[in-house]
């Protein structure tokens, strides 16, 4: 940040996008289609070791870590529908949390309990929330227009 110098960290002709830091700041995860379909990869910034994190399904994108760093939350395609999913990084168990067709832009709350995401209802773009165990779901009513790309603020005092 001080020198404002850019350093390229991924290479090649594949489409690499949507990067995000791990909570410990030592690695990033990003979406890449280098394997033929969009999947999530993790790059260790020290060792430059690259690891593919997702293997289930042919579309996993827009991932971010939960605050404890133990899981990632992402957009996944399952039976043609795009849903919000959570993957435990120890067991690689994937839990699909939503059951509609067009969902996107998941963002995990600072306490790691809720995920806000964009969906549509009656043709209008609205925000919705789901708990990380998938048991609580709610839609945030929008007064007018389309709402998209939500993000949690950090804890404020």
């Amino acid at each position: 940040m001080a020198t404002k110098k850019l350093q390229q960290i991924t290479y090649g002709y594949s489409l690499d996008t949507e990067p995000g830091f791990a909570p410990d700041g030592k690695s990033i995860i990003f979406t890449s289609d280098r394997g033929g379909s969009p999947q999530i990869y993790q790059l260790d910034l020290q060792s430059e070791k690259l690891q593919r994190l997702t293997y289930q399904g042919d579309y996993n994108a827009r991932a971010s870590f939960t605050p404890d760093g133990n899981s990632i939350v992402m957009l996944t395609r399952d039976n043609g529908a795009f849903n919000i999913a959570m993957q435990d990084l120890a067991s690689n168990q994937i839990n699909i949390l939503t059951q509609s067709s067009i969902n996107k832009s998941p963002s995990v709350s600072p306490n790691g309990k809720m995920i806000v995401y964009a969906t549509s209802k009656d043709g209008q773009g609205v925000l919705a929330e789901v708990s990380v165990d998938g048991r609580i779901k709610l839609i945030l009513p929008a007064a007018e227009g389309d709402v998209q790309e939500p993000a949690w603020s950090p804890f404020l005092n």
Partner: protein
Amino acid sequence: MQKTYILKILLIGISVLTFVACSTTSSPRAAGAAAGQNSATASGMGQGALFADNSGTTAAAVCAPCNQSYHFDFDGDAVHQEDTNAIYAQANYLVAHPNAKIRLEGNTDERGSREYNVALGWRRAQAVARILEQQGVSPQQIVLISYGEEKPVAFGHDEASYWQNRRDDLVYKER
């Protein structure tokens, strides 16, 4: 029997469309006048997709220089074989008219990740640009842009609409 009948109707439909598109190019002035409608005509091709299976069979008309759209498969950036004749015709025109300039606008359907879709749209624009450049068009004549999923032309939430939205729009800035 039934199938061939439908196919025939479809073929007649396509040839009529092609004929209409060609007739506008016979006079350059008319082509210019029809340019505004041409993108509509080209995306109207997508209506063929309502009858046909979603992949293929919707060749873009050979109508250079005209604004038109080329369609793609989901998460794909491969130009469909049936669109290549139309793209070659555009390339021939651009080579013959070095002052002509186009913009290739890559678009995606609404599904998937918004940011990823911006990159995917860019790839689609690049895919057509690569064909044009292979045919000898100067890169100086081509401007690329990706709108991702933000500029749909069809607003349904079904494959017919998605097909129309997964497209490159070729737009003439100068002819």
